[in-house]
């Protein structure tokens, strides 16, 4: 039987924003008078010309979530995802509509809620646990598990202000992760820490989702939403515009948000963030996978081709030209440089085309950032784009791999099995 855990009917939240029109003061007397009024904004404010604007952060959102469902909430910046979560966790009040929540609610809107830097790890575990809604006895029971997960045992009695940021995050997440309410509202908390830690957090979220709890998960990380949530909501400008199986919702969102550009389309790099002398400049780029498979979309373990258009100010040899693949968090996973081959390119003045072919990309499916570098072998940059564009590696179209690897990189492997001799 699917019992309703959350039912929302026409939830809306608006903010009133006051724009103060700047007026010109024609005389010194006007300016002084305005200045004096400015000192007493409560009384003087009424006379200034102000325009009020009502902005709906969330508008007419209705849905039902059954007990045990794990639902992702996606949407661009300012789509109202966080506001919706804040309304459901009762941090802020809706201006319209009504929601009913059946069960104990826990919300995780940031890592380290209620931590106090002067207190020790042990003290903060209790404090943060209590603030997140755990009972004292419950924290006591889970204390060892929390400390184990966070790997901070020997620093338990050190004030957290002396912790490294990694330790701090681990402990903070560990406390939050051991909260087990019937309904969990989670906002982007996974977007912190290094890659390993993010993996660990995702793993924990997996457990939570499998434990039959109702979860509403707001994230920008499409990979995580895909993995954790069978169903998703898409919010756009405060409205719930789509509700259904995650795959469809995610592709709809990516198509609209102009997420990773598709394969085989030239991506203009003129507006990208960059550094360097620009003696050689990246103008545009495009990428593709193994032509036959997945309509040119690159896939995990397959080939990836990246074609670059470089504009050189004058004819010159180029000794170092590199393409890197990074996680969205910025960790460099692959970095191929012509320098490794001792290869120099003789660039002609004006546009040049260079084609990189990565034979087999041993990365797990997901979104990656492509970085570009052209410079001298000494490390002096002509043009360096830490994040030129994004691409998505899909799951391999063959091989029937039922489960994605948990690692960051993949590895070809085989397994043999034989009967062992009976133990002596």
């Amino acid at each position, binding site marked *: 039987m699917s019992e309703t855990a959350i039912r929302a009917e026409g939830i809306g939240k608006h903010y009133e924003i006051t724009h103060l029109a700047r007026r010109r003061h024609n005389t010194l007397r006007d300016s002084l008078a305005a200045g004096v009024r400015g000192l007493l904004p409560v009384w003087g404010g009424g006379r200034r010309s102000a325009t009020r604007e009502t902005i709906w952060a969330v508008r007419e959102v209705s849905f039902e979530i059954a007990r045990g469902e794990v639902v992702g909430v996606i949407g661009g910046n300012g789509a109202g995802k966080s506001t919706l979560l804040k309304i459901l966790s009762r941090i802020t*009040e*809706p201006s319209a509509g009504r929601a*009913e929540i059946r069960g104990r609610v826990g919300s995780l*809107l940031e890592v380290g*809620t209620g931590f106090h830097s002067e207190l020790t790890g042990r003290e903060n575990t209790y404090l943060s646990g209590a*603030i997140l*809604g755990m009972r004292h006895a419950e924290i006591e029971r889970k204390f060892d598990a929390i400390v184990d997960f966070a790997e901070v045992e020997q620093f338990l009695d050190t004030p957290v202000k002396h912790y490294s940021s990694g330790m701090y995050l681990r402990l903070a997440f560990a406390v939050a992760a051991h909260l087990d309410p019937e309904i969990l509202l989670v906002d982007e908390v996974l977007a912190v820490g290094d890659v390993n830690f993010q993996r660990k957090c995702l793993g924990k979220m997996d457990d939570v989702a499998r434990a039959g709890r109702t979860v509403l998960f707001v994230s920008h990380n499409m990979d995580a939403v895909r993995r954790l949530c069978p169903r998703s909501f898409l919010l756009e400008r405060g409205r719930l515009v789509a509700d259904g199986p995650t795959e469809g919702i995610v592709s709809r969102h990516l198509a609209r948000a102009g997420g990773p550009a598709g394969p085989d389309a030239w991506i203009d790099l003129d507006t990208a963030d960059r550094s360097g002398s620009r003696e050689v400049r990246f103008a545009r780029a495009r990428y593709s996978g193994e032509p036959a498979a997945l309509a040119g979309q690159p896939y995990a373990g397959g080939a990836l081709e990246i074609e670059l258009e470089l504009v050189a100010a004058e004819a010159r040899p180029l000794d170092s030209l590199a393409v890197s693949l990074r996680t969205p968090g910025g960790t460099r996973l692959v970095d191929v440089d012509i320098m490794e081959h001792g290869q120099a390119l003789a660039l002609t003045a004006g546009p040049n085309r260079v084609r990189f072919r990565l034979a087999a990309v041993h990365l797990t499916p997901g979104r990656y950032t492509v970085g570009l570098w052209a410079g001298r072998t000494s490390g002096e940059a002509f043009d360096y784009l830490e994040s030129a564009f994004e691409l998505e590696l899909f799951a391999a179209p063959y091989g029937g791999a039922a489960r994605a690897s948990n690692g960051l990189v993949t590895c070809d492997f085989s397994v043999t099995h034989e009967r062992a001799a009976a133990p002596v």
Partner: protein
Amino acid sequence: MTAPVTVIRPTRGWISLGLGELWAYRELLYFLVWRDVKVRYKQTALGAAWAIIQPFFTMVVFSLFFGRLARMPSDGVPYPVFAFAALVPWTFFATGLTQSSNSLVASQNLLKKVYFPRLAIPIATVLSGGVDFVIAFLVLLGMMAHYDIALGVNALWLPALLLLALVTALGVGFWLAALNVKYRDVRYVVPFLVQFWLFATPIAYPSSLLGEPWRTLYALNPMVGVVEGFRWALLGTATAPGAALAVSAAAALLLLVGGAYYFRRMEKTFADLV
């Protein structure tokens, strides 16, 4: 087992104080008090001595200027202990008021990230001042011993009087904390208010300077009841609880209930405005 149902909708008009929920979150209240006590004197050189320094030196200054120079009457008890018996509950009140008025702004991280009954924040702040009170009170007992004043049975009234100080501090604290979220002017008002209130309370002088009916009217300031009550309970002055204390208690309750309702009304805007 039926799960608890939470209904979320816009609130209109008067809403309940939510005391039941506050009670359900009493463990959190306990942890917040515990936190405030723990971090109160962290990274200070003198530590908990600060709980004594402030009232003690105020007492010294008052003794010099009012006791010695102005020859202020002190209801027949030595002036220093007369002033200190008033300063101990006063400091509890003044610190509670000052810190609770800033408590919501200081906890804005919590306000924006997690739900719990918001009243817990100013309440915890005021309660955590209890530790300072106990320390200062011990010094007061030491002073009484020094002046050979014995503790009588009237001292049993002290918890009730302290409760009155607590109620007053909470009442004013609720108002100011909620106002401070929207109008940061409050932080400039508070030091002035505390100073003004100090002189409007019989700390440096006895309320016996006033005649009836002014004295009873004067007790509309709840701290009058607290301070004169403390003197009576500890030092045996002729200010036994009577009409004045009843007036003080009524005024304090009014402040508390009004403050709590105002706080609850404003509560929904805290996370957006702070």
